[in-house]
């Protein structure tokens, strides 16, 4: 589906905007739910919970723990394109951007979600949501523009599979560094 010509030009931008909007929707839900969960928990307990979630996710990513995290085991239906050249990709992006409407091949969003749920301010939560959308958009754009195979995306997937462990380490490290930086920023 992503190799379709619809993913060029302004429809691609609509898709990217949808991803950011979807990320913000999930972040908003998490921060609102978190405002209730945080009430009885002292701050150290919240950091401890986020740290535990992060440790579990990293162990899973490293293959040490074998657990299944919940995910929607389906693809976003192609019927979203009935809304037209721009609104279709926009809705597709929103649904993918929420992270709740399709597969989640990595556990990292759960660690980020726990941090948003228990620690983030509203602007920080929205930034994390936009970041999630941008991360997805970056991958999609990069795979579409990966040219050795004529832009079909198959060469990209092959490269991704080949470097899967390295990429998991890299993205996991980026998340850990971000969380540590957030810890430092909140301690000031």
């Amino acid at each position: 589906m992503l190799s379709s010509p619809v993913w060029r030009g302004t429809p691609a931008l609509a898709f990217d905007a949808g991803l950011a909007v979807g990320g913000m929707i999930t972040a908003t839900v998490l921060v609102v739910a978190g405002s209730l969960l945080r009430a009885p928990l002292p701050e150290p307990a919240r950091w401890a919970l986020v740290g535990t979630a992060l440790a579990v996710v990293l162990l899973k990513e490293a293959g040490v723990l074998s657990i299944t995290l919940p995910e929607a085991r389906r693809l976003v239906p192609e019927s979203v394109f009935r809304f037209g050249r721009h609104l279709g990709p926009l809705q597709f992006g929103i649904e993918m951007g929420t992270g709740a409407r399709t597969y989640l091949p990595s556990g990292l969003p759960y660690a980020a979600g726990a941090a948003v749920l228990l620690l983030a301010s509203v602007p920080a939560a929205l930034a994390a949501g936009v970041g999630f959308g941008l991360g997805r958009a970056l991958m999609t754009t990069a795979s579409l523009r990966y040219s050795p195979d004529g832009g079909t995306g198959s060469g990209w997937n092959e490269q991704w599979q080949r470097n899967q462990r390295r990429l998991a380490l890299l993205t996991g490290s980026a998340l850990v560094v971000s969380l540590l930086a957030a810890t430092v920023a909140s301690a000031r």
Partner: protein
Amino acid sequence: MSAASFGLAGAALATSGLAASDGTARPGWLAVGAWLAVGVWLMMGAAAGFAVSGST
């Protein structure tokens, strides 16, 4: 979405952070620091988003 786009967005954020400073109660570096604190969360989300999209 090229590296230049990210660079421009970063420059815009930094500039608006500096512009938010009134020079008296809120020094510019504090405003930039606030933007960076938000940027940390942006990076966290982006790492998760990129990781989860590998096989899309």
